């Protein structure tokens, strides 16, 4: 249990390839921070810098009150869960869990106690004598978790630990990891490219793009007030619709956009803020042609095209409406549901 303090961390590879720039994050003791971003955004590199698997070329990294820039991974008091689990294929589950403790010269009885305790907690007690290849994907995932647990480290580092599981197991392990982390109150840094995983697991999430931080905040903050167009497009599925303000003005009464700053030339609308019910007071409405209706069980996605705007707009409804593809629909939304952005800087302007 410890805080992790990243102060203007950066990583430049030989040949001036820059992977991470100017990242400062203070992780509180017991907090779970999720790093999220598309592939190549530097999130894994950042995690590996914290782990000590990549050298830090700029800034300082503190775990607890020690600066650990120069320390080997084993000396940083962290444990890591790898994307492909990285279990030692020739060792039994017991030895996989025990290997890190053996290397640290723990007593045999202590090793045995810790391994059994972790196995108990993760319900892999009956697999201790098996080899990893005899386990299912979910069980391997638990063993990888267990290898991190037995060490009782100051912080857990997770590198997309769920990406090799199927959808159902992913939901289940997501909940288990989160509950375990809350119970143990261990500081955790979690990397994922999946925005749903990020929203549901994080105390705070950090959206990365091109090696830089786009936004840090709680899931609700990030979702309801995305700081940049990148975050707006990345967090939320289906993604936020982006409409040019100039085009919107031609479609709407003048006062509809009056409350937005003049700099706002790009307007974001979340698909679930659009509705088929008639516009009430303070709401605005738009007409569009329905191109495709996608039913999705409890909800449905409507793909619409508006006159004079060449991209599709997606609306998400909590039911499957009785509408016909090819017809024109009127959509309504609240004025407060408009997210104003400056397209030049990509920043939110209000």
């Amino acid at each position: 249990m410890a805080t992790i303090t990243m102060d203007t961390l950066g990583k430049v590879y030989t040949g001036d390839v820059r992977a991470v720039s100017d990242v400062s994050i203070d992780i509180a003791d017991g907090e779970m921070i999720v790093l999220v971003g598309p592939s190549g955004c530097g999130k894994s590199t950042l995690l590996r810098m914290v782990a000590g698997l990549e050298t830090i070329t700029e800034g300082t990294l503190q775990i607890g009150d020690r600066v650990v820039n120069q320390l080997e991974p084993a000396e940083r008091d962290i444990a890591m869960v790898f994307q492909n689990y990285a279990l030692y294929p020739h060792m039994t589950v017991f030895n996989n869990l025990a290997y890190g403790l053996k290397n640290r010269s723990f007593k045999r009885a202590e090793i045995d106690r810790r391994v059994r305790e972790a196995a108990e907690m993760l319900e892999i007690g009956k697999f201790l004598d098996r080899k990893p290849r005899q386990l299912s994907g979910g069980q391997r995932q638990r063993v990888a978790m267990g290898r991190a647990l037995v060490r009782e480290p100051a912080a857990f580092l997770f590198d997309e630990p769920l990406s090799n599981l199927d959808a159902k197991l992913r939901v289940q392990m997501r909940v288990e990891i989160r509950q375990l982390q809350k119970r143990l109150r261990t500081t955790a840094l979690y990397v994922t490219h999946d925005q749903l995983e990020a929203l549901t697991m994080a105390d705070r999430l950090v959206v990365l793009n091109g090696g830089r931080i786009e936004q840090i905040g709680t899931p609700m903050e990030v979702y309801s007030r995305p700081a940049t167009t990148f975050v707006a497009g990345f967090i939320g599925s289906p993604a936020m619709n982006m409409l040019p303000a100039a085009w919107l003005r031609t479609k709407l009464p003048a006062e509809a956009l009056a409350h937005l700053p003049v700099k706002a030339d790009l307007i974001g609308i979340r698909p679930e803020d659009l509705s088929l019910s008639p516009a009430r007071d303070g709401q605005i409405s738009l007409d569009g042609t329905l191109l495709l209706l996608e039913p999705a069980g409890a909800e449905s996605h409507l793909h619409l095209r508006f006159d004079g705007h060449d991209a599709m707009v997606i609306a998400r409804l909590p039911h499957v409406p009785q509408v016909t593809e090819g017809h024109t629909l009127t959509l309504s939304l609240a004025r407060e549901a408009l997210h104003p952005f400056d397209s030049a800087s990509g920043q939110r302007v209000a």
Partner: protein
Amino acid sequence: MVDNNRWGNLLAHLVLIAGVTIVVFPVYVAIIASTHPPGTFVRGVMPLLPGPNAWDNYMTVISEGRSRAGTPPVAGMMWNSFVMAMAITIGKLSISILSAFAIVYFRFRFRIFFFWVIFLTLMLPVEVRIVPTFQVVADLGMLNSFAGLSIPLIASATATFLFRQFFMTVPEELMEAARVDGAGPMKFFKDILLPLSITNIAALFVIMFIYGWNQYLWPLLITTDPEYFTIVMGIQRMVTGGDSEPLWHLVMATVTLAALPPILVILFMQRLFVKGLTETEK
């Protein structure tokens, strides 16, 4: 996989039957020939069925050898070949697995340079090295010794390459997990990499043993004392050594005996070996 394809099937069978015939027929002839009395070959006929003299021929080569051609009994030569082959095999495996480990897992100056030097030696004809190497061995007084027989044959670019290719397929995360688990490079090598390489080591053991066993030119240069003659040299001497026509029945018996140790090594290592070669089953 293609199934139900008649002419493809036929073609496949033809190609394979041709290949098998080229390879297997001579082996069959050799075994048959080793069971015939001396007279059979003088007539210039190649027999295709076993003869009655198997026991006599084999006892002769094992215990007596052919003194006229200066060939000692086969038993001693087999032992020499065995010692030489084992020394070469173990030496080659140790050197090359360490070199491959260094090349794959360490980032150091001149890494690429070393890589290319090893690579080029793979390409150099043995003959380019053999004569000067002889000079060196002679100067060091290692003629007629097991050290002289084996040490110069130990450097192996091929095995280094094969181990390198295998290490490349080991996920890098294993090394990283070991680092996080507090294992240094040598501990990683010993605890993780070596156990994982066991099938590859077995496969290379077999190949290297056969390579060592079959060495011909080098033992010929380096040994003058019959006490250090190897079995392959023995065969060559029996064929070309004497003034008379070679005694084909004895030659063939020796040849068949010479084939046994490699086959035994294969059988002994079979399970591991096959696993090592065919691991990537489709």
